[in-house]
């Protein structure tokens, strides 16, 4: 009886595919799952714009194996909504793959659904290491992880910051402070590990809630411990609070290195004012970097300007553009929407470091993580965030902080 039922169901399925097939032959549906409303909306939308530009570019060049790409937007404000929207994309919209997701919490939740449904998920922005650490087969992340941010921070400290201060990095006392969500905690853990490996003393590690309205006690601890360099992973409000309250307490570290987030945003710099001058920041590549190490950057900025009539609001669109472009190429090479063929194509795809508009290379490992994505060390100079390291993409020389 069951067998018979199954056979009927199967043949019905075939019938549906047969009926459905001709209508969809010319279009390839891909999902785009980002927070489009709520508190993360600004950067979620900025991320999506990158995907949109990559898709437009691909469609103009003939699409994927002759099929035009249609993006299906899914609004995931938080983890629970991400689950619902991922279900909609995989079961109702029946997309061939999903792009996402800006925030790690959203990515964690959405990928669980897509993995079970057997729909490939291309992560272009979320940084939590744990996303690719779960043994998922159809999840690929193009962007670097929190651990990469931590590693690059220490590298920048040794190669740029310490030489600027004209001291041996091992004589610098480090303080690591961070917001206590997954983003801050993961970056800070990687920084702590990196410092231990290099033998640089860490005098304070302090976590605080990103919703804090007071950091004065944290600052008093750093001041008491005589920390020379502060590694700070923060959102906007807490970054502003830090500088303001440090000034009030008369605490002036020799250098501050931000870990992306609030430190990369022009609004933060504006709100902090003069003390931001000379502050370092490790983050995804920004559009201001040297295009010599990032071919196609100029074209991206021009296309963005044309479509949205403004300059990119942050580096998120660039990272998502580069990631989406690479994954569209993977889909074209797979010549199929079969999940295993896509996986094989992704694992086989190679691009050298310095060959994309973000300066990244592409080389996925078995967990689906791109191992050739890089981060840049930047510095706030006269109200602008300039790239100072690595040299291939640097557009300015570092300056001593004031």
């Amino acid at each position: 009886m069951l067998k018979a039922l199954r056979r009927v169901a199967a043949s019905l399925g075939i019938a549906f595919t047969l009926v459905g097939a001709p209508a969809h032959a010319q279009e390839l549906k891909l999902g785009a799952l980002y927070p489009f409303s709520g508190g993360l909306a600004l950067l979620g939308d900025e991320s999506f714009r990158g995907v949109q530009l990559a898709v437009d570019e691909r469609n103009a060049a003939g699409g994927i194996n002759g099929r035009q790409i249609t993006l299906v937007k899914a609004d995931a404000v938080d983890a629970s909504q991400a689950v619902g929207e991922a279900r909609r994309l995989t079961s109702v919209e029946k997309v061939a793959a999903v792009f996402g997701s800006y925030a790690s919490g959203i990515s964690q939740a959405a990928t669980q659904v897509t993995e079970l449904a057997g729909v490939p998920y291309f992560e272009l922005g979320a940084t939590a290491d744990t996303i690719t650490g779960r043994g998922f087969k159809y999840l690929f992340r193009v962007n670097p992880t929190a651990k990469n941010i931590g590693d690059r921070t220490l590298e920048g400290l040794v190669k740029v910051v310490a030489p600027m201060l004209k001291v041996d990095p091992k004589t610098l006392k480090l303080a690591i402070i961070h917001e206590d969500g997954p983003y801050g905690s993961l970056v800070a853990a990687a920084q702590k590990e990196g410092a231990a490996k290099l033998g640089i003393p860490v005098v304070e590690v302090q976590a605080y809630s990103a919703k804090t309205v007071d950091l004065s006690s944290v600052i008093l601890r750093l001041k008491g411990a005589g920390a020379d360099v502060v590694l700070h992973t923060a959102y906007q409000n807490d970054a502003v609070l830090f500088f303001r309250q440090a000034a009030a307490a008369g605490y002036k570290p020799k250098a501050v290195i931000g870990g992306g987030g609030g430190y990369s945003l022009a609004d933060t710099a504006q709100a902090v004012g003069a003390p931001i001058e000379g502050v370092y920041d490790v983050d995804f590549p920004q559009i201001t970097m040297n295009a010599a190490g990032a071919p196609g950057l100029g074209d991206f900025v021009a296309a963005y300007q044309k479509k949205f009539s403004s300059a990119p609001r942050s580096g998120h669109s660039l990272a998502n553009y580069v990631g989406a472009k690479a994954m569209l190429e993977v889909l074209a090479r797979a010549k199929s929407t079969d999940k295993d063929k896509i996986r094989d194509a992704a694992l086989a795809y190679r691009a050298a470091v310095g060959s994309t508009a973000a300066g990244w290379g592409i080389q996925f490992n078995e967990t689906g993580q791109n191992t050739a994505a890089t981060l840049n060390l930047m510095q706030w100079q006269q109200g602008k965030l300039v790239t100072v390291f690595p040299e291939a993409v640097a557009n300015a020389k570092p300056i001593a902080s004031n």
Partner: protein
Amino acid sequence: MSLLLQLVANGLLLGGAFAIISIGLTLIFGVVRVVNFAHGEFLMVGMYVAWLCASRLGLHPYAAVPIVVVFLFVMGAAMQRYVIQSLLSADAHIQVFATVGISTALLNLALLMFGADIRKVEFAFGNQNLSIGSLTFVSGQVITFVVAIVVAFAMHFYLTRTYTGRAFRALAQNRTAAALMGVDVNKTYVFAFGIGAALVGIASCLLTLQYPVFPTVGTYFVLTAFVIVVLGGMGSLPGAVIGSMFIGLIDSLAGFYVGPDLKEVVYFVIFLVILIVRPTGLFGLGRGSE
């Protein structure tokens, strides 16, 4: 020793900021008996108005107090008149949902109008760093602290010495009896809600100097404000002020000695202990007054 003094000073000054927010909340709690979950968003709206006054008209936030206060009074009164009033005889949780709805609506309205960016006003007055011996302060914090105390005293006199103040307290004790004594219940509620919101207006002007303005800024303060109001005893002004100082001190001391990520744990544990010992809060009116 000077470190401990600095921590205590920081704690009390932070308490000042909490106090000015909590006074309005406790008034609405105490008189209208509505848990106003939109309180944080009132603060946010006030901060945006203050920021607009500063960036468009060049007004110092302290000079914008009358504008913001009137704006928020109207907003609070309208919310009571057109939303809460029609739900007065409904279950308490219906009113709570209404305020949650308004809170969400205001937050997203701000996102729509201003985006998620942070804004800041730049004025020297209120941002000077002062020092007494080895202690350091920011002038705006001291002003906030002083204003909070003055406002608390003024409200206390208002509630005990004027007719409307007495009407507020009568309503707080027993709505039906107050109505029988000739208190116009609806009007007084509208007025009380307006005053509560107006007080947040003062708070927003003071805080705009010290904190950046963004759509979710209210949520950063409001949970603590709720804790303070319950801790001090709902509807009690001295309770709100002393509760604020208490939470401010714990925030500062626990942040230093225990760890900034655990300071909330510390004050929630103390909060729970106090509620177990005194369920009506430090200055609550005793059983039956919630």
